[in-house]
């Protein structure tokens, strides 16, 4: 097994209410060595009791339209405290976008290939996330998180957003979050 080194940076500290150990490591600019499978210590779920899945997606206020600056992602957790996402105003209309310009979108931050962290990789000029530090996959945030180049076999899970006045609410997830078999039990099929 090859040791893989990930250098991660933070986009923006705002919106980080609950900093998990993983988020802390990834946002502190630390160089994190991941040696193979399991990676004890990196992930808060490792070694802890299994996460109980929700029956349905919660409705959760994650920010305000008026507080978003173009190209500056805001981090939030959804639908579980261990799941990192960004809310970003792209400056270009996008699939699933909200706001007057339909350019506000939210996406999960774990690569759909092998789970690499996409923190700090937003490319404002192209409205893309990536490259993933593990194997360089990039994602197009104007097209529902579609893989541009690389290996993810799914688009990046997109957080479904609704607007109520100035408030932005997360209300669901399109796509399976890396590492999960079901995002919520209500979506389970046989």
């Amino acid at each position, binding site marked *: 097994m090859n040791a893989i080194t990930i250098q991660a940076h933070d986009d923006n500290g705002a919106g980080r209410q609950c900093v998990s150990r993983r988020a802390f490591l990834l946002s502190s600019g630390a160089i994190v060595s991941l040696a193979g499978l399991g990676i004890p210590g990196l992930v808060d779920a490792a070694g802890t009791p299994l996460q109980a899945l929700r029956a349905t997606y919660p409705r959760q206020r994650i920010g305000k339209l008026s507080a978003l600056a173009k190209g500056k992602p805001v981090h939030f957790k959804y639908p579980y405290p261990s799941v990192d996402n960004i809310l970003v105003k792209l400056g270009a209309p996008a699939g699933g976008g909200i706001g007057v310009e339909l350019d506000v979108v939210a996406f999960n931050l774990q690569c759909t290939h092998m789970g690499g962290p996409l923190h700090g990789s937003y490319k404002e000029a192209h409205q893309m996330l990536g490259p993933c530090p593990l194997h360089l996959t*990039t994602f197009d945030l104007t097209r529902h998180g579609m893989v541009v180049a690389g290996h993810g076999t799914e688009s990046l899970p997109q957080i479904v957003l609704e607007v109520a006045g100035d408030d932005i609410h997360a209300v669901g997830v399109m796509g399976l*979050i890396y590492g999960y078999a079901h995002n919520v039990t209500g979506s389970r099929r046989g």
Partner: protein
Amino acid sequence: MATENNPISFAVYAKDYVPVPPKDAQVLTTACEYCTVACGYKVYRWPVGKEGGVRAGDNALKADLPAGGVMVPWASPSQHNVVRYQGKPHHVLVIPDFAATVVNPGGDHSIRGGTLAQKCYNPENRTSERLLYPMMRVRGTLMPVSWDLATEAMADISKYVLEKYGEHAWGIKMYSYQYFENTYAITKLGMTSIGTPSIAPHDKCSNTNDATGLDDAGVDSFAASYEDWGMAEVCFFSGVDPYETKTTLFTEWIMHGKTPDKKCIFVTPHMTTGVAWGVKNGGIWLPIIPGTDTILHNALARVIIENKWQDQEFIDKWIANSWEVDSGYGRGTRNTGWQWRTTWGTWQSDWGDYQKFILGRDEHKLENAAKITGCKAEDIRRAAELIAKPRPNGARPKTSFMLEKGNYWSNNYMNTTSLSALGLICGAGNRPGRMISRGGGHQRGMVSAGGGPWWMDPEKYPGRRKKSFNLDRWMVDGKLKFAWVFGTTWFAAMMASQELQDAAFRMTRANPHQIGSLDRKAIFETLKARVDSGGMVFVDSDIYPVEPLGTQIADIVLPAATWGEEDFTRCNSERRLRLYSKFYDPPGEAKPDWWAVQKFAHKMGFSSYDWKNSNDVFEEAARFSRGGVLNYHPLAVKAKEMGVKGHELLRTYGTTGIQTPIRVRDGELVGTQRLHDPTNNWGEMEAAEVQSPFMHAFSTHSGKAILLKSPWDFPGWIQFYEAVKPRTAKGEIWVTNGRINETWQSGFDDLRKPYLAQRWPYPMLIVNPADATKRGVESGDFVQVYNDTVYVQTGQPQGVLDADLNFNNLMKEGHIKTTTGQFVAVAIVSDEMREGVAMANFNYPQAPANSVCHAVPDPVTNNYRYKLGRGVLTKVGESPYKKSFTSMSLKPRNII
């Protein structure tokens, strides 16, 4: 608002669940169906109606779900499908082998292999288009028939054609990679039983070698192992970005491996993802003008020789001197594919002569080479330093050289001779981390029964030597009366594609003699009248209806069973042999091609086609692999000793497999990691193995490699190159072609997989912004590429004098005709392309980019110059993808 302007052109809504395999799910090993790397995969199979639990003890993944962290065992929704197994519906997960220690350690994988489950037949999705039963074209429409009638009709007309027109008139166009069992059966039929020279593989017009200059230098194209790429400190990538076409080789062995901080040099007009990564990590992008690689290689050699950076110790030991070049009937230049007398002195050299050649020609000077290649002189010089200059501590850099189709499909012979010479003077070729190899395209799945009557080829080189058979030209000229095509588009894959398919159509559907009833005798009379009136008969074996061969042209279409539907075997590009397990039932009456061949052989009355299963073919073929780099005969022998089937013994090797050629030591099978390595010389053999000299020395008579000269003004090259350059007065630019990471080959599977079809719903054309702006083209526009002068070689020209087969002479003698070609693609405007060069998807039947390329093979090797298309770009209109949010990202590939 934006939604009104953004059509839903193609939308797949992402699932947020995937079934969990129960702990008693059956697990089988396989390897990826697609690129040459062949990552190891596991198939989890269990009956519909059950599901595993989220605790590690309750599922077959042995993982708690959700699994926290990265690189954990996980299946995405695209890795699931429901198939039929023993007639009952079963869930399958096809996921990379997370326990793999070779090829794709830890379960790395590509997007193509990662979606393998989606290729399995399931009538609920586009795999419902699979061919389900044999069909015969009746007045234009394909009608179901039995296997018996289909093969009887084939045998009836075959016997007539063989009797009246001879073996030449009966041909095969076949994949060279789709598993040992099938390729052996097909070549046994064609070469041994029928005895025809009219056989060509999927990627060539004739049965010739690929990287011919490597062969002539004595370097096997697949000598390196993935570990070698991992160990290299510097990689020189010629005409290839392995990220796009050999994904896991790049993401595991180039980005990581033993030397993760290696420096990479990329020679390609397209800055793809791997190139951008390489440049960011201290490497170099040499955005070459198509076709000029030879000059670049020679200029690099000149910088190295001028500075005495060559590996003199290696040269003294391993480079043939002039006597050794001439010796025996080995692999010296005089016994290669090119006639020795006519070229004597053109190519061959020794170290002294090679230096004189490199230093004596003006075009090899840095500033001149920069002008011809379009690369910056300082970049060429820096590249020479990286690959050859001893480091401050005196150590030589460990440099490996990879080439692929951008190299040998633009100037087949000279790009490969010049690259092999460059690599050899840098000390590469036979030791760990210092190798010269192809990256590889498809996997290595050819075991040929051999024995073909190549002396019957109508073509010849100047002098006495026979030339390999050009099946395209033979067909266009109306000499082929019966063709059986196995698993290839034929036309889109070859040059001047539209001209080829016009010819095929003219001789089949446009012929007045069309099958009108399914009476066997009536069919024969019709087809007999067809071939006697200038027409021909096509049979197409494939898994899907192939456009236009299967859908419009073939008289008989046969349904093939494929990956996952039969136990098959083959090697990857480091010669690693694995069993590709059968795990579900083929659809309808689909049968593996070896079975179809056997059925036909019985109708022909041929004996010794008595295979009961694919293992029987595997064991019979084993002895035909002896002496080659894919030798697995010792495994078949050992299986027999153990009283087990060959397939079953191989199955025990799982996703690790064993690297061929297989040897035996202390009674155990031992693989061969790299070729030409002197440490492979074990002396005595202990079992039924073959200790071929190429295992521990170079593939020449002397065991030493041969330095080959590559003069830019060689008339067999330069006349063609001058003729096919874009004509700026017409507004033409180079229109080259190739593959990108997210799709494989013609897209036969990928364009039917929901996720990948959404990513690439239509073929692309990547255009530099400067070229696009001049033509009013924006990203998302449909663009036509049109070449009003596509050169096509006609007839089977015979060389007598030296110059006879060069382009100008062929033109003068009436052996070149001109035609036109076009295709339409969706523009992606991006500075990742070099200005003056556009890049299209290769081999997409709906947009045959090869239509604008010239069907005039390299006169030295009979390989086409696939990458040298040209054309005028014209905007057709906006595609729906221009503004769609749901399909076809138009973003650049070089974002790092």
